[in-house]
């Protein structure tokens, strides 16, 4: 039988067709639409780069990317830092002093918010934070005033960030703890006998060990933060007054509420560019660090 490589192309055929139809063609069409003015009916009218120049002058567009930075803090920076401390503590202190059962029970608890559909999490929190919801009931019980947490432009974004931290925290914990399984426990014992305190062990053993996972976690979470949609939809619909809008919600709103398809397509294209640029930047940095 012939073992030439040519025959393997047949196996790529279904995938190639499917990708062309579902990803390449729509992506190209979206790119084309971003250069037109179109309400979704009739024919798109070619307007060149007008949508993009309009974007650059649109305050809501800049607000949406500023809010993305807030999402990166809430979904990447804070969970990764807390995840590092929690996983190191669970592995090095709790796991060794109280047994692996306690450690994995706590790990599962932190992971629980990751399991549910993020929209369900958003709706649950939306109710908790409602003016007549549970958070205000707690605030009243401990003598604080009530507050419309998601209705006030000043507190809406911090509250969304809080919800996202709650959603995200379990992901780094689980990945980092899995990474730590590779460490020889004797290493920690030996370091301890040499008088290394918890922080010294964290610095010298834990951090270098989980560096590859830290890269993966920060990259995947950053992409997720750039794409975030469901929680915003469920919590605030981008409001009040665009205070919590993000690029994906901005694009959705332009497509399906304002019927500005060309403009929405331009927002989506800009978002794609940012995601690709950030990912390439990440991989470059990772490559340099690993050399």
């Amino acid at each position, binding site marked *: 039988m012939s073992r030439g490589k040519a025959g393997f192309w047949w196996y790529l055929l279904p995938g190639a067709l499917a990708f062309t139809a579902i990803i390449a063609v729509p992506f190209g069409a979206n790119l084309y*639409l971003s250069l037109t003015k179109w309400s979704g009916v009739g024919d798109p009218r070619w307007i060149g780069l007008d949508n993009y120049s309009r974007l650059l002058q649109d305050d809501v567009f800049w607000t949406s990317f500023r809010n993305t930075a807030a999402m990166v803090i809430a979904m990447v920076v804070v969970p990764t830092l807390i995840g590092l401390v929690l996983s190191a503590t669970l592995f090095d202190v709790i796991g060794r002093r109280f047994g692996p059962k306690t450690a994995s029970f706590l790990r599962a608890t932190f992971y629980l918010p990751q399991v549910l559909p993020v929209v369900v999490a958003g709706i649950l929190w939306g109710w908790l934070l409602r003016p007549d919801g549970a958070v205000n009931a707690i605030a009243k019980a401990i003598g604080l005033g009530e507050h419309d947490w998601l209705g006030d432009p000043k507190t809406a974004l911090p509250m969304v960030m809080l919800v996202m931290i709650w959603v995200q925290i379990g992901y780094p914990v689980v990945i980092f703890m899995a990474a730590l399984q590779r460490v020889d426990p004797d290493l920690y014992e030996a370091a301890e006998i040499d008088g290394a305190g918890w922080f010294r062990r964290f610095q010298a053993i834990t951090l270098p060990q989980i560096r590859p996972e830290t890269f993966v976690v920060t990259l995947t979470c950053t992409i997720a933060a750039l794409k975030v949609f469901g929680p915003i939809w469920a919590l605030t619909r981008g409001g009040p007054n665009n205070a919590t809008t993000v690029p994906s919600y901005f694009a959705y709103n332009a497509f399906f509420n304002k019927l500005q398809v060309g403009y929405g397509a331009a927002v989506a294209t800009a978002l794609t560019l940012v995601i690709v640029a950030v990912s390439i930047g990440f991989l470059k940095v990772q490559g340099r660090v690993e050399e």
Partner: protein
Amino acid sequence: MSRKDPDRFRQGKARWVVLALVGLTAALVLVPFVIMLMNAFKSPADYSSNGPLAWPESFQLDGLKTYWQQVHFEGKLLNSIVISGSVAVLGVVLSLLNAYALGIGRVRGRMWIVALFLMANMIPQEALVYPLYSMAKSFGLYNSQLSVIIIFTVIQSAFGTYLLASVLGTFPKALLEAAALDGASRWTTLWRVVVPTVRPTLSVLLIFFFIWTWNEFFIPLVMLIDNSTQTVPLALASLQGDRLMDATTTNAGALISLLPTVVFFLIFQRTLTRGVTVGAVK
């Protein structure tokens, strides 16, 4: 040991402090779930007189029943199962075929092809959604589960191809040569030699695709507008969107909607935590 004992944790009280701190953090994570449970089993009257923080006066299933009947939850469950199940199976098959050509066939230009799949994985759904929406409308697939199944089969298999191609890239040569000596065709080799060997990875992918698709929101929100086609997360979202729900129904709805994923997580906990690791060191 003559020196001062370096292990403050073993005998000291410090380890209890650490446990208390971590336990407290875990408890904080659980608070929203506890409040949800408390209010899901209350009667509306109990809620309006005692507020959200009181323990239920009696254990009521009214909220759960109301929500179930209001959204025809059994239909949503079926839709979610059909959509996620089809995507999981089709997505794994498509990933496997791609990865067979890329990882074992080592077709020319495979680095570029894998890079393309990786890019496809990064594109935000917003940059595809309007053309997909138009296409679905013109093919008569708008508001049908089939459109969502096709779209997510392809989107999930972008990641699956990427992962499986690298797994199959390290597939033991000896096994392939043995199959070739036995006169096995490529097709037979794929199903009789490759698939049984990488079955653990395939099952992780299968579960991942199922859960990821189950939890998807954006594209189903755009494509599925009808009560008869919507999925579990969408049902809760659209009812909330109508602002029709009182507090107890909201909590009961949230509880019912997250239950399937939690059950799923408990059943597949081992595979999943192993899978997260597979995904992480990819």
